[in-house]
């Protein structure tokens, strides 16, 4: 028996893809999960996820009302965590989403419930995508174990070999348990739905801006993952102030983002422009940026 809040129609028919992954996600992982979720929804795929913080939350951060597409959230306890409750109410009210739970509302949160719900999540999905995972012992992931038991195909997003948050997904791919996917396009190709080209719009990339050489040198060193200031400034303390200033200039130009004092490139689809203007990019993703 399942309890549901919202429109059950959201969980019926069509292709359903589950997106899951670690709670302790990296910024890049969340970004990827959010883009994948939005692109899949735009391609008419229903996104199934668990509303847990980290990857799962990012995947379903689709903008509360105007967002197209359908979502199914399978939760361990209804209306938990408190912040997720807002999403549940908003999403359910639009008729485009449904929250499912095995237990009647109001039960206490317990660790096993969150693991147990993965089996429902897997049962609903045509494909399970793991975006980031720390544990290289892949059997430890409840979703992976459930998918392998039920024969649901698995996909994983590989990451840098030394990235802690990609250790699990890399292991999945290496062991041959999962297909390697990079984005929504690869996922759509796997499930055989939607025009892949449309979903690829999120990989537009930033057009190389014309910058004075000093700024260009710093900009070239920025990537999608945040880097500490002293790594950008090079050895010694003398260049710290100058580098910090150049980074602030890049930020004012809308090219860099200061994440708790570490710096990365601004992603047009993910970050709000510092002037408050919305730049080219999907409305959905911009709204998502505002939510965090």
């Amino acid at each position, binding site marked *: 028996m399942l309890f549901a809040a919202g429109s059950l129609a959201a969980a019926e028919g069509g292709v359903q893809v589950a997106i899951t992954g*670690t709670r302790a996600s*990296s*910024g890049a992982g969340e970004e990827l999960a959010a883009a994948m979720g939005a692109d899949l929804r735009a391609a008419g795929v229903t996104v199934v996820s668990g509303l847990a913080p980290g990857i799962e939350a990012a995947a379903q951060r689709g903008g509360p009302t105007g967002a197209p597409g359908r979502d199914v959230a399978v939760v361990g306890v209804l209306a938990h965590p408190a912040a997720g409750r807002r999403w549940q109410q908003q999403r359910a009210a639009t008729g485009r989403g449904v929250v499912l739970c095995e237990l009647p509302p109001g039960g206490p949160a317990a660790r096993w419930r969150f693991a147990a719900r993965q089996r429902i999540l897997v049962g609903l999905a045509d494909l399970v995508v793991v975006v980031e995972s720390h544990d290289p012992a892949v059997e430890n992931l409840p979703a992976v174990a459930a998918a392998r038991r039920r024969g649901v195909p698995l996909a994983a997003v590989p990451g840098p070999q030394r990235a802690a948050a990609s250790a699990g997904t890399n292991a999945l791919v290496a062991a041959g348990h999962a297909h390697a996917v990079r984005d929504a396009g690869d996922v759509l190709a796997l499930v055989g739905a939607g025009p892949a080209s449309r979903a690829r719009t999120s990989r537009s990339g930033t057009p190389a801006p014309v910058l004075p050489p000093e700024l260009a040198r710093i900009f070239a060193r920025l990537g999608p993952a*945040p880097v500490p200031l002293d790594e950008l400034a090079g*050895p*010694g*303390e003398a260049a*710290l102030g100058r580098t910090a*200033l150049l980074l602030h200039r890049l930020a004012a130009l809308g090219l860099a983002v200061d994440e708790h004092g570490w710096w990365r490139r601004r992603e047009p689809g993910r970050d709000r422009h510092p002037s408050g203007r919305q730049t080219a990019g999907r409305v959905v993703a911009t709204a998502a940026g505002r*939510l965090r």
Partner: protein
Amino acid sequence: MLRAAATDSLEVVVLARVDAAHLVGVDGHLVVVEVHVANGLPSFTVVGLPDAAVRESRDRVRAALVSSGLRWPQRRVTVNLAPSGERKGGPGLDLPIAVALLAAHGDLPAGRLEGLGFIGELGLDGSVRPVPGTIPLVRSLAGRTAVVPAASFDEAAAVAPGQVRPVASLSDVVAVLREGAAWPAAPRSRRRPAAALPTGDLRDVRGQHLGRRAVEVAAAGGHHLLLVGPPGCGKTMLATRLPGLLPALGEDQMREVAAIWSAAGLPLGDVLAGRPPFRAPHHSVTASALIGGGGQLRPGEVTLAHGGVLFLDELAEVPAGSLEALREPLESGQVRLVRAGTAATLPARFQLVAATNPCPCGEGTVRGACRCADHGRARYARRLSAALLDRFDLAVVLARPDPSELVGGPPGQTGRGGRGPIPEPTACVAERVAAARRRADRRGRLNAHLDGPALDQVAPLSAGASELLLRRVRGGRLSGRAVARVRAVARTIADLAGAVEVDEEHVAEALALRSGREVLAAAAGPAGGGW
């Protein structure tokens, strides 16, 4: 003073008075020891709120008198410690009690006691032993010649040269006062030359350029510093390098600090050499050990760090009560301790340096590397209240250093593959710090103590600098209070660069040097942070 009067033909009343001092907090208070000897059953009573150590002094005094070949009066002896309403403690009253007793029954000429004050504990063999707090005690005997234990002579002479006399035993006192001998010569000074820097050289810190810079700015401006980073990245190493960058204590400040350390019974060598204190209590420190307390109102670590650095490693592991107790002295620069019987105000103007992991596993500075449960992470970060974090002008996140910088050649050689310059040694950086401090001195105070109106006057911002700050405020990344703190740090950075005006480069660096607060704030935020 001696008065013998035959009030009755049968009773002889003898009274003697001797000046002494006892310790309250870090101050000496004058005590007058009065001894009254009357006919009656032999007894010895101490009145005037003595503590256990003072009550026990009867047995020490008796043994010392007897071993020195002096008489113990077989009469009714009353010792009063005036002012009698104040609680008195410590063994430092042994010597004055013994001297007053000798005077009261005529073994010492009372006239010779005028203008003298006595400090010292007695051994059973009649030797005079040092007591903690010699400096403040001698100070409270101002205007008198202080007779102090020979072992404390150096300490006392440092604050009151010329008006202290050393004695090694009770017999010395008797020889001088009764037989008219000269005061014993001062013992040969045992003060060691200032040892090499005990805390290590900045040259040993490889990589960590932001951290090294933060320590330099902290030293130049007196700003409180917080280091956030994974275990083993060099937080403690950096923090212990700070005292070496600080300028030597001034003459007045050295006396003040020496009095505090003397009151705590700590060795004074480094302080008298002008080295600022560096206190690093273990993170299990209790509130009263940190702030001060106990029956005798002993100074706590914040007071012992007065004029120097208080280093708290593993800040998030320090008990919450101790952490919150820090806020008041951080603000006011002093601690007012009040107990039922006594009260004392202790100075506590120190520079706080703290180090902490960002989360229980320690890896939380890099998103995605942390293995903690999100609620565990939030709980850890919330141990540091926003009110406490507000006191840190500088908060930097440290990453593990680049391996190639760790395995670079020995000091004096460039790192492997010619990577980067040799890390600057403490002496070089200290020179810059001293120059920056001189600029601040001309303005009258440390940059850390600059506030709103003073900032407008001494830290005018260039157009670009105010633009940068405004953009930050508009983006919701900086509060009004934080703007003032950034400006104070930017002033210090400008001082280090020898610039008059605070430029946008200085502000940008100041912003980078406080970014560690955002990491902790993000960890303490709602679990997951995504909703």
